[in-house]
């Protein structure tokens, strides 16, 4: 991230407003709020949260980098979450992940150049009965096979073209 748009700062201030008088134990909920609104944790937000909670930015980075949930890069418009739970693994999620990476030409944690897709690997979505499972922007796809990946992703690409 080179520059943060001016409105981001104002947006973060607005997000912090309801947390007046918050203490350290509200740090993770605040980070979750910011990520929910911005899609990731911009540098500016970390500094502002630090000032708000009277904590050094290093402590906040320390907490934010510890947990898998927090991202420091903007995600794609469609977030592909690939479940790598045990049941999914037994049913071949490694090959599904490989096929998705191959199709999008990125690795987990990265975003495609057009900003359309990003891949995230999650420990378990909790839908083990339907393994292997992927979820794209909250929409679940059950029993995914490596050769079925392209059709799913193409569906989202078409949606994008149609709405453009």
């Amino acid at each position, binding site marked *: 991230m080179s520059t943060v748009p001016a409105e981001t700062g104002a947006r973060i201030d607005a997000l912090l407003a309801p*947390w007046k008088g918050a203490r350290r134990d509200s740090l993770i909920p605040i980070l979750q709020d910011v990520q929910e609104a911005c899609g990731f944790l911009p540098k500016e937000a970390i500094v502002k949260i630090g000032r708000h909670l009277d904590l050094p930015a290093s402590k906040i980075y320390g907490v934010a980098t510890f947990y898998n949930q927090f991202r420091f890069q903007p995600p794609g418009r469609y977030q592909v979450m690939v479940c*790598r739970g045990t049941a999914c693994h037994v049913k071949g999620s490694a*090959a599904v992940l490989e096929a998705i990476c191959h199709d999008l030409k990125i690795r987990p944690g990265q975003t495609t150049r057009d900003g359309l897709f990003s891949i995230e690997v999650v*420990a*378990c979505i909790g839908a*083990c*009965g339907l393994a292997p499972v992927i979820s794209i922007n909250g929409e679940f796809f059950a029993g995914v096979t490596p*050769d079925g*990946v392209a059709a799913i992703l193409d569906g989202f690409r078409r949606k994008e073209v149609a709405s453009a």
Partner: protein
Amino acid sequence: MLDPVSAAAGAPAFPRCCERCFHSPETPCRDLVACLEAGPLCHEDATCAAALTARREAALRLRPARPVIYVGTGTCGLGAGAAKTLRAVRAWLHEHAREAEIVEVGCIGLCSFEPLLDVQLPGRARLCFHRVTEQVVEPLLETLFAGEVPRELLLGQMRGEGGEAWPGLPCLDEHPFFAPQTRWVLAHCGVADPTSIEEYLARGGYRALARVLHGRTPEEVTGTVEASGLRGRGGGGFLTGRKWRFALETAADQRYLVCNADEGDPGAFMDRAVIEGDPHRLLEGMAIAAYAIGASKAYVYIRAEYPLAIQRLRNAIAAARAYGLLGRNVLDTGFNLEIVIKMGAGAFVCGEETALIHSIEGRRGMPRPRPPFPAARGLFGKPTVINNVETLANVAAILDRGAEWFSSLGTATSKGTKVFALSGTIARTGLVEVAMGTPLRDIVFAIGGGIPGGRAFKAVQIGGPSGGCIPESRLDTLVDYESLKTVGAMMGSGGLVVMDERTCMVDVAKFFMDFIQRESCGKCIPCREGTRHMLEILQAITRARGREKGKETLERFQGVVHLQRLAKVIQDTSLCGLGQTAPNPVLATLRWFPEEYEEHIFDRNCRAGVCAELRHYSIVAEKCKGCGLCLKRCPTAAIMGAPRSPHYIVPDLCIACGTCLDVCKLDAVLVA
């Protein structure tokens, strides 16, 4: 300060029968639960009594005027397409100008048969149908409303739900998936409307809480739970009542209750299903536990990956608060309880008590040495009891029906039931609740229906990354905390992943080590560095000869020699449960499947054909007719060839997914 997360809109109002009832959440009614059950109690009025009875019957949908359609919209149902089914049902009703009540329920447990749709026609028993995808909705409803029951879609009729039974139709509780189960915790899941507090009350909910608050001391409640023999369902299996007693006996001005719903074990989803399907059962259990230990504030630490469960829980808390069952002066007894939802941020180690406490306090979720145990010094330095969702979901029934009732089921040391999340290569996947002491074989073969496709059973993985794999020869092991330990596994939180002959045990061990080394918090060096090194050894075992350079072959053998010693060091020198149990997946597979390790090490052969580097796909030119099917389906375009001439696979592009092997009708694909 009000936590913005726990504030929810659209809560139901306090249930008043008429103007004479002067109660509200601010002035709660002492006899609310009894009043709703057989009221009104404070005044005599036939109209009010009739209204309350009608209200109860409506909540239970005993005599519905119009058909009721239930759709299972838990996370697993939605994954199978329940949202589309629901839309199709609405569209069909609208199109045919039919009136029906639509109820969204949680998951009844049979995930592989989703989407599930139940129909209760007026005066008749509720029927449960399986695999009702959007295309099936129209023919199903048309046949049903014409008075016929489509047998091929029917799973069974529910005994005791709705009116008169259908003659000649099978009952749901006789279905092989449900018959061997004892459903206590899951009793309402998929049956009752999880968004309706009225229905929970009408089914006898909050009765135990009312009784406890009105006439039992915290010592008595703790004693009952202790006598019942209930043990923690989250993994360790510590006696719940004893944990409560420790906290109760520690003098403090403030105590906390924490419900651990951070179901981090990959392969476990029962906590999610309980919260999605029956949130009030958890809340009632929490309220009783909080009363027993003298806590006025409770936290639910739940995974952020469970948005639907969080939503349901939030609404349930708001409803319970509106009824005066939570909040200040609960049921006018002077007992206060505030329940706050804390969303976990995705760290497996936060399942460990002290790490979880650090996470709630807004710190890195790293464990600390015990003692002091959280029951003495926990959250914010105060005595804290941390219980798992399933543990707390058992509490209300124990207080309602007594410790003897609970301890009459199970084995000598493990009482009650246990919920398992059954998944993997098995015919029927889903949530299963069995009595303690049930043999694993019954769960896998009777309830789960065995392995599909005529393949052979290899192992069942229990206890997640801390557990182990149990082979066929030990399948008669009973489900019981102690028995499972004798075979190198543990109860864990209850994930059961079934593996068939196409699963490689070395690969499974590698999968868990990869998970553990990523999730190790990094505090203890043996866990942080040791698990990574174990993973490297396993990776070396599964590496192809061609990719080894210099001394790597020698190091590969050296690693194998030291594998078990390394495991021992990690077990002995790690601070928390994660590290102490981290080597279990390797040790258990090594114990029961040594021959697979030997094949990988000496022959560089993976009998299951999983380890990609030890596997090469090729096409037999004599057999290939050039149909192009594999070429079209290959996800990485690694197959080339002209139509009607033999194809070939480019090894560098192949990810060894096996799609070509599966689709080839001529058996031309060769795996070596």
